């Protein structure tokens, strides 16, 4: 008679608030897959690096460490600002400040992607291509996978921004977007250290 208590009056189908909202939960499950995806790419890269006689290969251009450090900073700041936007949305709902913070974070994210694009163009012109060496192959696949995630996340968040403008954004959708962007930002420093620095 476990459920014989009075709390179940039998009206049926009344909602109980889930601990984590559906959209956020779905994104978290997806992030598990994403983490494993990046772990696989990185470990494949590390194995190849460990087996190579010389790394990076002597005839290949070096990666832009300082410029990318600056870009990393930009990305991290975007996450902080997005966090503020999330807090503002939770507290004040549809407010001017929320929209401004959200837009600023989006702008910084876009800056990161565009800056990366310019760096890629320069590296290509120096002779680092997908086919030039396994160094180049791994660089473009790993960093490109991250860039695709960033572009996808930005596109999704742009859609959220439009919905926010129209006063139709649900809190859980916004939070799902935030969580995914934290993932995109959080994985980047690891990639920076493993691919650029070592």
């Amino acid at each position: 008679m476990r459920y014989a208590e009075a709390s179940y009056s039998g009206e049926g189908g009344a909602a109980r608030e889930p601990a984590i909202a559906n959209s956020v939960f779905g994104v978290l499950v997806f992030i598990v897959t994403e983490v494993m995806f990046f772990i696989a790419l990185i470990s494949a890269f590390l194995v190849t690096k460990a087996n190579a006689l010389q790394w990076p290969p002597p005839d290949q251009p070096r990666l832009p460490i300082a410029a990318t450090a600056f870009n990393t900073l930009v990305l991290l700041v975007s996450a902080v600002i997005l966090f503020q936007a999330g807090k503002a949305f939770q507290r004040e709902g549809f407010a001017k400040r929320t929209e401004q913070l959200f837009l600023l974070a989006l702008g910084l994210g876009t800056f990161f992607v565009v800056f990366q694009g310019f760096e890629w163009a320069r590296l290509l012109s120096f002779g680092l291509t997908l086919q030039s060496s396994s160094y180049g192959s791994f660089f473009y696949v790993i960093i490109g996978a991250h860039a695709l995630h960033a572009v996808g996340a930005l596109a999704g968040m742009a859609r959220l921004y439009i919905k926010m403008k129209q006063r139709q954004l649900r809190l859980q959708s916004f939070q799902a977007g935030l969580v995914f962007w934290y993932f995109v930002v959080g994985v980047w420093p690891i990639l920076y250290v493993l691919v650029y620095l070592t």
Partner: protein
Amino acid sequence: MAEVATQTAHQDGHHDHEEPSFWSKYVFSTDHKIIGFQYLFTGLAMAIIGGFFSYVFRMQLAFPGSSVPFYGVVSPAAYNMLITNHGTIMIFWVAMPVLIAALGNFLIPLMIGCDDMVFPKLNRLSYQIFLLSTIVLIASFFVPQGGFGGAWTSYTPLSAKAEYNGTPFGAPLWLLAVTLEIVAFLIGGINFITTTMNARAKGMKLYDIPMVVWMIVIASILFMASVGPLVAGAVMLFFDQVLGTSFFDPAAGGDPVLWQHLFWFFGHPEVYVVLLPAMGVVAEIMCTFARKKLFGYKMILYSSVGLGILSFFVWAHHQFISGVDPRAAYLFTTTTLLISIPVAIMLFAFIATLWGGSIKFNTPMLFAMAFLGEFLIGGVTGIWLGSSGVDVYLHDTYFVLAHFHYTFVPIAVIAVFAAIYYWFPKMFGRMMNDTWGKIHFWGTIIPFNGIFLPLFVLGASGQHRRIYNFQNFPDLASENFQDLRIFATGSLIVLILFQIPFFVNFIVSLKRGEKASRNPWKSNTLEWVAPSPPPHGNFGDELPVVYRGPYEYSVEDREEDYWPQNQPPQAAARS
């Protein structure tokens, strides 16, 4: 929670009561039951293709060089393409869609008592991507130079360069199809896990969830956690094939064994991804037809979690002869032997469930019991192969082939038939014919053993897996070996012929079968509360409330020997 699910469903304009058109009802539906059926029928259609492929190459092995009826003469390239795509289809386009996607979609919302998945549109997208992947795979058979023939494991460097595998179009298309299919199940998996965690009926605690739902959820978690490396590997392999990179080319600094690691890191958990739902199906059926409580519910649940965790540490037992360090092989042997413990716990729990029950031997129950016996053979031979010392001798022989068919056939064929016979009344509102079901059962089980027992013998005698014509090898061309091959092929043909009664029974029962009541098996779980077949929204206006666990059979002091989860405790007990 149910409200949350309803909300999402309502956004699709999904509960309007006017009669929807054929297209929006069956093709672009967001209803979880329709999507389940789409997966089921696509899976069954692919099973026919995969079965036909096995018939063609088994005929080639039994009667090498002669023309195969309905196909013609099998060339070596065609033989490779047939075995490759037989494996690919049976695992990715039959076992996965039917066991996980079809059963998961149909059963999860019904068994946890909600009206639909929490992300109905994503669910529809999942099937559409799956359908696209199916079309790409089938297209890959017909491109110039034929379909991919590098085995379903697609080992590099053979698969990476067109000059090695000879299929410049087939290989990338095959890889694309597999990747798309995986994306489809990824989306489905997110839906299954989130729905089960967030949208359960009021009163349904974690330990009140029916075992099959738990198993599908755990399998989905395993899938989500293991599939990332395969996607990463697939991207790298696709780049090698199409863009000329050299991830897996040793000549240019790549590493061919890397692919094996990425593939098997997914590939081995994948075995358990399909095993667990089959175990869940068997658990439901055994409890219903033994009229007994599931023995050791929590033990089975914890075992499956332990099994899931262990399954991430066994992958290299596929690579004992790929140059893996012998010390690492020792570790992987240990984990592989360990993983048989949780599986054994589950099998014993099912046997204990049968113990002292009043067992009803109808078709679903027969299939469920056959699953135990046949899977046991697969499991025990797996222990031999998991020991690196034995594996060095048996690797890539028919022994391995027979072993994994003794695991996959019980999973993807026997358990699936059990599930279809058991849930057919709920799916389509009519009963299947039990006599024809039993004929189908014996006609499936006996020839199945007839195919694969001889292959154990052949494998132990050293017959290699991937040979087109054994007559070219004096050691393997002897007459008694050939007799065993012919016997296996003959058994396969008998098996295929005995599927005709199933299909006829299925189609005739759809139209003419005896009408099913809501709860024809007198079962406890929530899907039997809904009408047969369940309408849009499953339970009508009022979602069920759960008061007890799913397996309260033969409870003392009750008139009925079952006690549905949604039945309120007697008024007397409450006042």
